[in-house]
C-alpha cells in the first residue's frame, strides 16, 4: 500500500500534473469570477466563501479522471487487480493520494486566494477548517465516480455528471459553514454535519468503489 501511495505521489510530481495544476485551476477560477460578475468589491466579499468552495470543488473534480484512467490505459490497473492487495485498499490508497495531491494544496492556498475576493477577516478560520474537513469527502466521493467510469474512454465529463449531485451535501454544508464564518455567525452545526458526512463517506464508500471497480475490471 505504501508502495502504491508513494508511486502515485511520485507520478503526480514527476508528470507535472499534481499539485501545481489543481492549484492553478483553483486560482484561475477565482481570478475569473470578478471578470464575470463585474468589479463590485462588496459583492465579491459576499460571494467569496461560496466561490472559493466552488472553485475547490471544481479543481478536485477536474483531477478525478487521473485517479484510475492512466493506470487503466497502460494496463497497470489489470496488474494491480491481480496483486496481493484488496480492492478496498486500492481505492482507499488512490483516494488518499488524490487528496494529498489536490485537496491539501487547495486548503493551503484558499486563504491566499480569499484575499483576492475580499473575504472578511473573520471568515478565514471557518473557511480553512471547512475545506480541511470537506475536501477528503470530495476525494473519496470522486474516487467512487472515477471507479464507475474507469472503462469508458474519456469518461471525464460523464464522471462529472455522476459525481456532482453526489457532491451537493458536502458543498452545502461546507459553503454554509464558511459563509456563516464570514458573516460572523455561529458555524458549529454545519461544520459538524460536514464532519459527519466526511466520516461516513470515508467509512462506507470505499466498499462501493471497490465493488464497482471489480466489475469494471472484469
Amino acid at each position: 500500500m505504501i508502495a502504491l501511495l508513494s508511486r502515485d505521489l511520485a507520478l503526480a510530481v514527476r508528470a507535472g500534473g499534481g499539485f501545481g495544476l489543481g492549484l492553478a485551476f483553483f486560482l484561475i477560477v477565482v481570478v475569473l469570477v470578478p471578470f464575470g460578475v463585474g468589479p463590485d468589491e462588496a459583492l465579491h466579499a459576499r460571494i467569496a466563501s461560496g466561490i472559493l468552495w466552488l472553485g475547490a470543488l471544481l479543481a478536485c473534480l477536474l483531477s478525478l479522471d487521473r485517479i484510475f484512467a492512466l493506470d487503466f490505459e497502460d494496463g497497470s490497473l489489470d496488474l494491480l487487480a491481480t496483486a496481493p492487495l484488496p480492492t478496498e485498499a486500492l481505492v482507499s490508497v488512490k483516494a488518499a493520494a488524490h487528496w494529498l495531491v489536490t485537496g491539501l494544496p487547495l486548503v493551503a492556498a484558499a486563504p491566499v486566494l480569499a484575499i483576492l475576493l475580499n473575504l472578511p477577516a473573520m471568515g478565514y478560520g471557518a473557511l480553512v477548517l471547512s475545506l480541511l474537513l470537506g475536501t477528503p469527502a470530495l476525494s473519496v466521493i470522486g474516487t467512487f465516480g472515477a471507479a464507475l467510469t474507469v472503462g469508458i474512454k474519456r469518461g471525464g465529463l460523464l464522471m462529472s455528471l455522476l459525481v456532482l449531485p453526489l457532491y451537493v451535501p458536502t458543498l452545502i454544508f461546507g459553503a454554509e459553514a464558511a459563509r456563516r464564518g464570514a458573516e460572523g455567525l455561529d458555524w458549529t452545526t454545519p461544520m459538524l454535519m460536514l464532519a459527519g458526512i466526511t466520516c461516513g463517506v470515508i467509512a462506507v464508500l470505499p466498499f462501493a468503489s471497490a465493488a464497482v471497480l471489480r466489475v469494471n475490471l472484469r
Partner: protein
Amino acid sequence: MASVWEYANPKKFIETTDRILPWVAGLAVVTLVGGLIWGFFFTPADYRQGSTVKIIYLHVPSALMAINAWLMMLVASLIWIVRRHHVSALAARAAAPVGAVMTVIALVTGAIWGQPMWGTWWAWDPRLTSFLILFLFYLGYIALWQAIENDDTAADLTSVLCLVGSVFAVLSRYAVNFWNQGLHQGASLSMDKEQNVADVFWYPLIVCMAGFVLLFVALVFLRTQTEIRARRMRALLARERLS
C-alpha cells in the same frame, strides 16, 4: 400459485405482460384522460389561486411519480444485485427515462405555476431544489447505462449508482432543508386532507394520480419488453457473427 420469481424469466415476462398490457394501457388512458378532463373542465377556480389551481392535476401526480419511479428503480436494482434477474435490471433501465420525464413535468408545471403565485419562475426552495438534484441523478443514471457496452456490467454499475445515489439524495434533501427554508406548500396528502385541499379538487386529483401510476406501469412494461428484445437481439446477432 407459482413463485413471482418465475416472471424474472424474460420470455415469461414478455408473454405475461403482453396479456395484461392492453388492459393496463387502456385503464391508464381512461383514468388519465377522465381525471384531467374532470379537473380541467369541471372544477371551479380556487378563491385564492384562481384558475392556476388546475395545474395541480399535472403537477402533483408527476411529482409523485418522479419519486416513485426512483424508488422502483432502487428496488429493481436491489433485486438485480441480490438475485441477478436480468428482467429487473432491464426494468430499472426502462423506468429511468419515464421518471426523468415525470421530473421534467413537475419542474416545468411548477415553474409555470410559480410565476403567478410567487412572482418568479424559480426559487431555491428545498423541495424544488431537491427535485432538481433528483433530475440530475436521473440524467447521470441514464448516461451511465448508455455509456457502457456490456449489459451485465452496465446493470451492475448502474444499480450501485442507484443505491449510492439514493442515500445521497436523502442526504441532499436534509442538507437543502437546512440551507433554506422554503416557500413551497407542505404536504397536502396528509390524513387530515380537509385542512389543505378541498374535496372538489381532491377527488379529480386522486383520479389523476391513479392515471399517472397506471401510465407509469404501462410504460415500464412496454419499455422493459423493448429492452429485453433489444438485448436478445444483440445476443443473437453476436452469436450469428460467430458461426
